[in-house]
């Protein structure tokens, strides 16, 4: 299953856009980037490690040699890459349920995009425009992005407690240890394999 490495799924999708719609999309990305609602919602959904949108204008495909035929395209292309956790259906269900406005702002400019709601035509569209990954590398395959964030919080808590843990009196240590436990307690889930893809 070459799209998947551990808990991460590498999704690729390409959609055509009429060239005069591209500047509108670029504007919306600018707004979304600066007003920060899209970034905040993506962080709160908490199942994407990294994701990017790449606009390749119709004359933007790299051309490196005379021997390479020049592309002659009428559409600009929007390519989407995501490194996400969870199953394909779960991922798209969640986006359709809570991020439909943001998704529509990004993909409305692509030809034949049906909208993120209702979810079935949306899933059909994604299936049509998705293409598969040939090789996927993941440096922490047993950790979802939730696990990474939890581990980093644990690291901070340990670093903080390490400053004083050995120099406290027994009574103070006892108290401080409980406080330390309370700090790390939500973040102690194990890492491991992902459930089977569905």
């Amino acid at each position, binding site marked *: 299953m070459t799209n998947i490495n551990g*808990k991460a799924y590498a999704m690729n999708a390409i959609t055509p856009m009429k060239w005069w719609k591209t500047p509108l999309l670029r504007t919306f990305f600018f707004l979304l980037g600066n007003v920060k609602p899209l970034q905040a919602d993506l962080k*709160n959904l908490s*199942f994407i490690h990294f994701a990017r949108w790449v606009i390749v204008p119709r004359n933007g495909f790299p051309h490196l040699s005379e021997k390479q035929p020049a592309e002659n395209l009428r559409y600009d292309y929007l390519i989407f890459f995501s490194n996400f*956790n*969870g*199953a394909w*259906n*779960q991922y798209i*269900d*969640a986006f*359709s*349920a*809570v991020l439909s406005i943001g998704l529509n702002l990004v993909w409305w400019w692509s030809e034949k995009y049906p909208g993120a*709601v*209702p*979810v*079935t035509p949306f899933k059909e569209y994604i299936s049509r425009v998705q293409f598969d990954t040939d090789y996927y590398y993941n440096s922490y395959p047993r950790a*979802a992005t*939730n*696990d990474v964030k*939890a581990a980093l919080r644990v690291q901070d808590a340990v670093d903080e407690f390490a400053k004083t843990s050995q120099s406290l009196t027994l009574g103070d240590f006892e*108290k401080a240890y*409980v*406080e330390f*436990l*309370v700090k790390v*307690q*939500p*973040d*102690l*889930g*194990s*890492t*491991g*394999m*992902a*459930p*089977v893809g*569905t």
Partner: protein
Amino acid sequence: MTEIDVSDIQGFALRGYNFPFARYLLLELLDSKAAERFIGHVIPHITTGVKWDSGKPASTVNIAFTQRGLMQLGLPEATLLSFPIEFQQGMQARGQILGDIGKDAPERWDAVWHGGRVHVWLGVNGRNREALDRRCSEMLRIMDETKGARLLYAQDAASIFIDGQPTSKEHFGYTDGFGNPDFKGAQRDCVPGQGKLTAGGRWEALATGEFLLGYADESGELPVAPIPHLLARNGTFMAYRKMHQNVATFRRYLDEQARRYAPGTKERLAAKFVGRWRDGTPLELSPDEPDQSIVQNPNRNTDFTYGADPSGARCPLGAHIRRANPRDAFGFNGKLVNRRRIMRRGMTYGAYVPEGEPVNDKDERGIVFMALNASLFRQFEFVQQQWIQYGNDALQGNDNDLLTGHHGGKGKFVVQGTTDPRNPPFLCGGLPDFVELRGGDYFFMPGLTALQMMAAGTVDPR
């Protein structure tokens, strides 16, 4: 307000009957014409969703079919192929997805589930044993007369009786039966906490299509349903799972851990495992002690959210009910949860052994778990795979549900707490498997019109 025709829906799909005795007859269908006759003779007995204004009947009957059962009945190929894929495959084939591996693997299930011969689930509930037996005899007589079906196995189940009274306890000692979802048209009183959350913090009934085919679901679409429409309409899907409970292991584990947690706190620790005290009081509403006044009040006993408890100090992040129904725990006003609800109709089986008396894991006892929903894939299977056998959405990584998840002796459960020594942070390790799957399958529970079509042999795909 969605109008649903309750006379066309099987009552089992609309509400739990609250009868203390049940027998689930697992049948093999014989010759397809005879099977049609059998169904035709059973239809008058089927309990519908019509309210019991003149009092509860002595017993009820409901019927559901596996994919193989529908094949045996001779439904057209195109119809059979239009059922959702997971139903066509059957639960055994979905083992990898559900985590039915190791001790839960199909190879270790009760013999009745081997060979694909279970075609029909005939669920009989009775007010008392006599009524139950009488009704079952009638069913067996119909089978004999029509020669349309053969009994493969009869699974008895009954409420646990304590001091001569039926309770809704199960064998680990927990009081069950809360939290069945409210949906539009169910014609039950809407109870706060059972529906979905609205932006204003109020509870609202869920879309009918989450639980019945032929109606709009929470995403504004009709759920995947077989054709023709009449076959699907007012039907639903059921996951039937016989869950053996290792009561001795559970009691031993609880005792051992409670001694380390703090002396005299066994009930508190037991509450932390599940999210309710064993008497049914939700931890979110009463974290320090059980409170029967909450339990007895249907307007309170399931009316709570987790928003004020993000660290799990009242109800642990991985507690069973928090995993199975996260309510508002994911943010976004609970929208990520609304399409993952299931109706539950469980019933215990096997002899009850009170606390303190010797008990053996090997004895036959457990729960017959039945989940009803419009989409097995999107609802039951999802909850089982992502929230019970996995912990990412509960922010617990790979830690599984303590009560029903796979542990193999190695799992762990974190009890989040506070600096108050009565509610300390605590880690339970070395989790054994408390529950083992003994068998089951996916069933389609048709509406009454659909049943008539099936009995008449008039199911026609487009």
